[in-house]
């Protein structure tokens, strides 16, 4: 029986409001994401929000017009209320991958998780790197294309193609919920490089 967990990425006030492009993309994705999270909670699947906290002394952290978003303890770093529910877990991260020097792997191991459903923003950065990292650590990785978001659709399409080629099963939320309920998740097989 698969032991799943949903990981969300960067659904935080500062980050979803970076610019109009991103705001619009997140607004369009929010209803379906809320439905999916509610369904997962009903099925007893734990929801873990990966919260990007930018460090002041990190020269590689992205600045918005000279200011550093999502700093520790700031309002802008909080998980957007529409995606958060009682019983969810928040894990702090400081880099793109949710596993990079975080407690995520330990928390998932404690929960007995072997399959991660990776969601959130943006598909071509944090979703992609967290998926690769999870795959390298031996997790089965599922990415629902309707539970990830990018400011630009072409970035999302490219990232989903990459994910499906290298490390993840790309599966819409409706099929995924049904597969979890029936314990019939598909296996991902790596296509060897010729």
């Amino acid at each position: 029986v698969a032991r799943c967990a949903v990981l969300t990425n960067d659904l935080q006030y500062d980050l979803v409001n970076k610019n109009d492009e991103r705001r619009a993309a997140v607004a369009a994705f929010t209803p379906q994401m809320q439905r999916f999270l509610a369904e997962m909670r009903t099925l007893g699947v734990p929801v873990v929000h990966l919260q990007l906290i930018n460090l002041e002394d990190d020269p590689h952290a992205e600045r918005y017009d000279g200011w550093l978003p999502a700093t520790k303890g700031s309002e802008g770093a909080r998980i957007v209320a529409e995606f958060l529910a009682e019983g969810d877990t928040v894990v702090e991260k400081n880099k793109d991958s949710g596993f990079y020097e975080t407690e995520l792997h330990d928390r998932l191991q404690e929960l007995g998780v072997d399959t991660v459903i990776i969601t959130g923003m943006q598909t071509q950065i944090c979703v992609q790197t967290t998926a690769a990292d999870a795959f390298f650590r031996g997790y089965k990785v599922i990415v629902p294309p309707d539970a990830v978001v990018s400011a630009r659709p072409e970035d999302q399409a490219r990232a989903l193609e990459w994910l499906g080629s290298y490390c993840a099963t790309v599966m819409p939320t409706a099929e995924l919920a049904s597969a979890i309920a029936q314990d019939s998740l598909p296996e991902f097989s790596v296509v060897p490089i010729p």
Partner: protein
Amino acid sequence: MTGGVIQLDHGTGGGMSQELIAELIAPRLGAVHSGRMEDSAVLELGVSRIAVTTDSFVVDPIFFGNGDIGKLAVCGTVNDLAVSGATPRYLTLSLVLEEGFPIADLERVLDSVREAATAARVEVVAGDTKVVRAGEVDKLFINTAGVGVCEREVELGVEQVVPGDAVIVTGWLGNHSIHILSLREGLGFEERVLSDCAPLDGLVWNVLEEYAPQVHCMRDITRGGLGTVLNELAAGAGVSIQIEERRLPIQHETAMAADMLGVNPLYLANEGNVCLCVAQEAATEILELVRWHPYGRAAQVVGAVRERGGRAWGSSPVTMVRADGVEAAVELLYGAELPRLC
């Protein structure tokens, strides 16, 4: 002298400078340091030809999964000498330190210099230490010079490359760059893809010891990657070079990361990888010898040198037969968007 941080006075040439050198740098370098604290080192070389090189190291971050800027400085310098057919003997080591740099980190770097120099059998014969104000450099930059002795009568060089030569690459392509990029951004590849930073003097020595007449040219594949090296060889020798994508030693995870980042492993920097042009008839045996060495396990014959004639004017002299069978140009890049990888 332990703990604390580097202060501007450590670089003024006064008492604190002397203390830093005498109580920290020289003891940390141990036996590989033979500097006499004079204005210059006077060396007995006993040969008529020497090889000299110089390099600067500004990698960010300075500590990475399986190395650091100290190891990189020694290996980078040693490898440049080795591919010239010289036996690396002596290094200089100049440190430009940022005020506030932790002395414990300097000790780690010096330990790496010592270990890498011991492995490559080179001595640090001269050095310099400067300290600049916070923000004027990022933590630590290193400059080296290297001296090697040319003990063998070998003719190596781009002018020796001839049509028919086989092109051998001794290690995975792009791993150093992907490792560093992944560390900078926390991409999740840093534990699966390690830097190839290594001293290759032993590997090169083995090859030249057995096959010197058949080896025509060697190049350290650093910044610009294999694509740049091949273009330089083709231009310098007036030949064309064709490689095969299927033969390129590219680790699966490196291909994944490169594909994700939109970069081409052909142009990524390496720090322990040599490209050899060798006589076709000896290629298989040389490949076997390279693979016997721990740093040459992934070696491959990746292509061959051909006559330039017949190619359209202005077309790339380097091409790659892709996995789908189509021959595509391997262009010379005029810039790179990936700074501070070495």
